């Protein structure tokens, strides 16, 4: 593994899926453990789960803040320019004062620029925390979005600041294909798509494949619980020439280990070699691509 890391300086593998609950976190964590050392970054800041498998201790916590406007009511003439400018309806100019709705503010800074009285300044507002730790040789960084905060992207950006050089960075993406997923995957060298061979799994996989094709990021598919479901997923992948890089059959033991927060490669070590093989495949793809 060391060769590729030295060669590219930086290797980012993102584990994504369209559908939730297909096994992204399971793959990300078991892959990291199988490699022996890796840097895991859980970018699902709404519902981070990698720590429920890695059980980190000695967690270093840092706050994540976003700039949010504060109006100096003394200096404000209630002219209404800020409210008119704000595209997100985060500022309401009333008859006696200006109200700022912090949670829906996108921190664009426009209100500060348009205020003719210079009565608006920005203060840092905490939206969540970044937690970093080390379990064995696996580093884990995850974000914890404050409950009630709608916007996850600033926190995902903060998690990604923990991407390190000369290491395999494994990013665990949130489900779906919206802004949070694009933010997570966009600089990846390779994306592992985890799916399950069911109609829901396939539908959401097709959606994600469309996005990755547009972003022009190389990817391969891990079919989880490959023994349940039907053949439609395999058929689709074959037709599209998309490579299946691993299959994990349905195994109640894996489900039970997951429920207890135990990475399954610890109990079923035969999977370690398979995950290492996955990384070798990625290594080749990245090397041939660059």
């Amino acid at each position, binding site marked *: 593994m060391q060769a590729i890391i030295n060669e590219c300086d930086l290797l980012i593998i993102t584990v994504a899926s369209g559908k939730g609950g297909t096994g992204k976190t399971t793959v990300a964590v078991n892959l990291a453990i199988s490699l022996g050392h890796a840097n895991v970054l859980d970018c699902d800041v709404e519902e981070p789960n990698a720590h*429920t498998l890695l059980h980190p201790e000695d967690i270093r916590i840092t706050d994540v803040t976003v700039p949010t406007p504060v109006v100096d009511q003394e200096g404000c003439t209630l002219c209404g320019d800020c409210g008119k400018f704000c595209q997100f309806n985060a500022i309401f100019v009333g008859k006696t004062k200006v109200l700022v709705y912090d949670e829906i503010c996108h921190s664009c800074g426009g209100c500060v620029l348009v205020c003719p009285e210079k009565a608006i300044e920005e203060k840092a507002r905490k939206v969540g925390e970044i937690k970093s730790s080390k379990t064995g040789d696996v580093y884990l960084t995850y974000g914890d979005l404050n409950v009630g905060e709608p916007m996850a992207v600033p926190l995902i950006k903060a998690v990604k600041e923990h991407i390190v050089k000369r290491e395999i960075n494994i990013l665990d993406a949130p*489900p779906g294909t919206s802004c949070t997923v694009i933010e997570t995957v966009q600089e990846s060298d390779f994306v592992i798509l985890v799916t399950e061979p069911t109609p829901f799994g396939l539908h959401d996989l097709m959606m994600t494949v469309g996005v990755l094709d547009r972003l022009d990021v190389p990817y391969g598919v891990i079919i989880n619980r490959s023994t349940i479901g039907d053949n439609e997923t395999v058929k689709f992948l074959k037709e599209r020439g998309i490579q299946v890089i691993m299959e994990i059959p349905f195994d109640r033991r894996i489900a039970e280990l*997951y429920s207890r927060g135990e990475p399954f490669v610890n109990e079923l070590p035969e999977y370690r070699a398979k995950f290492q093989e996955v990384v070798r495949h990625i290594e080749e793809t990245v090397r041939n691509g660059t």
Partner: protein
Amino acid sequence: MAREIAIVSGKGGTGKTTITAAFIAISQNVIMADCDVDAPDLHILLQPDMNKTEEFVSSKVAVIDEATCTGCGVCESSCRFDAAHPPDINSISCEGCGVCELVCSEGAITMQDKVSGHIHESSTRFGPMVHAKLLPGEGNSGKLVTEVRRRGLQSAEKQGKDIVLIDGSPGIGCPVIATVTGLLLGVIVTEPTLSGMHDMKRVLSLMNQMRVKPMVIINKFDLNLDNTRDIEEFCKEDNVEILGRIPFDSIMTKSMIAGKTLPEFSPDHEIVGQLHEIWKRIEDYVKMTK
């Protein structure tokens, strides 16, 4: 006025859509609304006939006129989203705030309407359905969810239905906040895994914050009986009603592959009986709060 009930989970893949579809088939008397606008799956089981499809426009995107742009770079340094790279705009990163248009001294930038997704009003074999699909990479899921809910209520009014049943999305961010705001009842489908419990607690605290009544269904309860007991104790302490525990059963996947709801696929199955009872309890709650 009809009342809204949403099925949410925090964690993805716990069985939201399968259970929502089962309730729809049992009741045959609700308006259905799929508020998982990022990865909607309910239509796979309900096969709606789309009567009306509209573009959803709720934000703007900056466009630079290359001929007028002098490449001075002031937009680039003012853009907080790393979207302005004159003469180009990265439309995925652009949040439509309008700051670049404001600072451009040449008047080379205009803000144009942006289609963020599509919204459908449909008919199914169980009644009317409202659903939507956010375009990949979009960040307006909250607004689209609100629009789906508005149309769901409208349709309920027209058809004289008492309940709008909403299939929610995983997570606790923007779309989930928009989904739970002002609900009569939020049903959390959880599973007895450490991550399932962790995610349930976060969505529960979101619902407490928004003053929305929660109830819980434990799916795949026999996967880990200790964790199931922990969930039950936790809910008891928090005064959260447990609607039922559903065993881990391959019928969930089999019915999905058949493209049917559980009650259609296997009307006499034990789980279907349980879901009938749970739905009855939900209906009773709706009646009680009238």
